[in-house]
């Protein structure tokens, strides 16, 4: 019990220092939390857009419906394909009239429908990368009744580049802020050790074990990390609520999944423990010649 008591006493004895450490860690983690919130929403948006990625095959005029039906069944069995949709010539014209309002006059005056029938393939999750999309497009081109295949190559590639950028940014920024948190906890532990140097020297002199001496500091690191993590969650939630209620365009903002929050708080506590253990071992090791 003494280690826990000492850890709490340590925080109580220097409340300003303890509070500053917790706040500093909390604020670092808030930035991480806000970034996580952005990353999560960007990810959600990208996934939403990705779900709309389609490979469209335009059919030749003389493509027989029987052949097309057989091909559709084949395509439905592709693991990459989530849904196959056939759009007839008439349907294509109706869509064009509806979607392209500025050309409605042109479409109204047509005697012959110039638009081809098409097959739309929507891809399953995990098969929406540029490579997978191109592969499906190539297979579609293999059918002799397909005249042309479109899937917006440049658009798909940009979408994936954006996702890679977001992931890379999250990793770099997340790592940087985690490092800041570690350095803050380390500094806080060093200051706590300094504040208790007299006690530590006596403990070392009378023969307390290293783990006994280190334990309160590690517990203090755990408490600091845990409180910092909880503060970060609270402030991130506050920022989320303010954004949603006060700013237009943010009403569709999605809150972080519970698993992310739990992971974040656990990671903050873990960081606290690791930073404290590393720091305390380095600081106290000097008293042990070996």
């Amino acid at each position, binding site marked *: 019990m003494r280690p826990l008591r000492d850890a709490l006493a340590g925080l109580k004895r220097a409340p300003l220092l303890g509070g500053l450490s917790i706040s500093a860690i909390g604020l670092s983690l808030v930035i991480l939390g806000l970034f996580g919130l952005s990353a999560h929403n960007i990810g959600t948006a990208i996934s939403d857009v990705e779900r709309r990625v389609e490979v469209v095959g335009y059919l030749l005029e003389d493509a027989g419906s029987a052949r097309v039906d057989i091909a559709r069944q084949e395509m439905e069995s592709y693991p990459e394909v989530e849904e196959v949709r056939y759009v007839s010539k008439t349907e294509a014209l109706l869509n064009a009239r509806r979607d392209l309002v500025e050309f409605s006059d042109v479409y109204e005056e047509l005697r012959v429908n110039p638009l081809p029938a098409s097959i739309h393939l929507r891809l399953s999750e995990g098969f929406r990368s540029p490579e997978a999309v191109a592969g499906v497009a190539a297979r579609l081109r293999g059918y002799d009744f397909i005249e042309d295949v479109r899937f917006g190559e440049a658009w798909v590639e940009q979408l994936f580049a954006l996702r890679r950028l977001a992931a890379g940014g999250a990793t770099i920024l997340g790592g940087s802020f985690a490092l800041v948190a570690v350095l803050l906890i380390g500094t806080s532990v060093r200051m706590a050790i300094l504040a208790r140097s*007299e006690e530590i020297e*006596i*403990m070392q002199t009378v*023969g307390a074990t290293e783990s006994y001496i280190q334990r309160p500091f590690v517990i203090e690191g755990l408490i600091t990390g845990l409180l910092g993590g909880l503060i970060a969650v609270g402030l991130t939630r506050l920022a989320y609520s303010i954004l949603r209620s006060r700013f237009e365009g943010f009403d569709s903002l999605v809150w972080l999944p519970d698993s992310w929050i739990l992971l974040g708080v656990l990671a903050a506590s873990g960081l606290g423990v690791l930073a404290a253990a590393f720091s305390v071992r380095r600081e106290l090791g000097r*008293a042990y*010649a070996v």
Partner: protein
Amino acid sequence: MIRFINVSKVYPRTGAAVSDISFHIKKGEFAFLTGHSGAGKSTLLKLIHFQTLPTEGQVQVSRYHSDRIKRRDIPDLRRRVGFVFQDFKLLERLTASENIGFALEVTGTPRRDFDAKIQRLLGQVGLAAKSRSLPSELSGGERQRVVIARALATDPLILLADEPTGNLDPRAAEGVFELFRSLNQMGMAVLMATHDTELVRKNPTMRVLEVEHGRLVYDSAANGGKVAPVAVPNDPGKPSTPVRPAENLAPSTPSSTPVRPASPVRPASPVDPSAPGTTEPASNAPTPREAL
């Protein structure tokens, strides 16, 4: 119990603190460790307490050897070697009994044994009536007694004292010294670093080890006070410290006091072949309490 075999300690920044020192302190022995400030006394105590390791040679304390001790064994060694500081190092916010309780707690003594042990220790150092006093309410001598009681909390077999009377008036110093003597008479080995020449002079039968410029220059238990080379196990041919009597601080009254020329350090003269391999304990050394 404590054996130094050709021990040298060089600090990277400040250079050699002690050089080629060999001596042996037996169980239950009392020895003064004398020398000027900066002569190397504190480094010797730190080496015994394994706060630092020798650069060369070997320090043996009980069954622990400096060249093969593991880091995790050091706390155990320190429980067997009590340490008394000149500047007390008491926790000012704790009472006398709480300071002792602190040592008991951090070394894992069962809580049910606390009260009895604290009372016994305070009684042993003559402070039973001051158990609830804060250090700031105690005199220098009383504080040092609390420090001694704290050092005894782990039932050590050796007591190291680094200038324990340095901050005390003569009367308090005398009282603290008498306490060390009584502990020694109960079987505890005591090594007391001091530059209190008067204290050393008043106790001529005690063994005196004198260091100067990091070298052991005088050992009253050695043949004629001369410091003899110590045979190194498995390396018996290794040469040792130059032989040179101390220039000052030697006990003045005992018959065994060597002639001490005032000459500066000079190269080693031929080593006396009759010198013993290890020095003998002082004649007043009590029977060892128990083997470590």
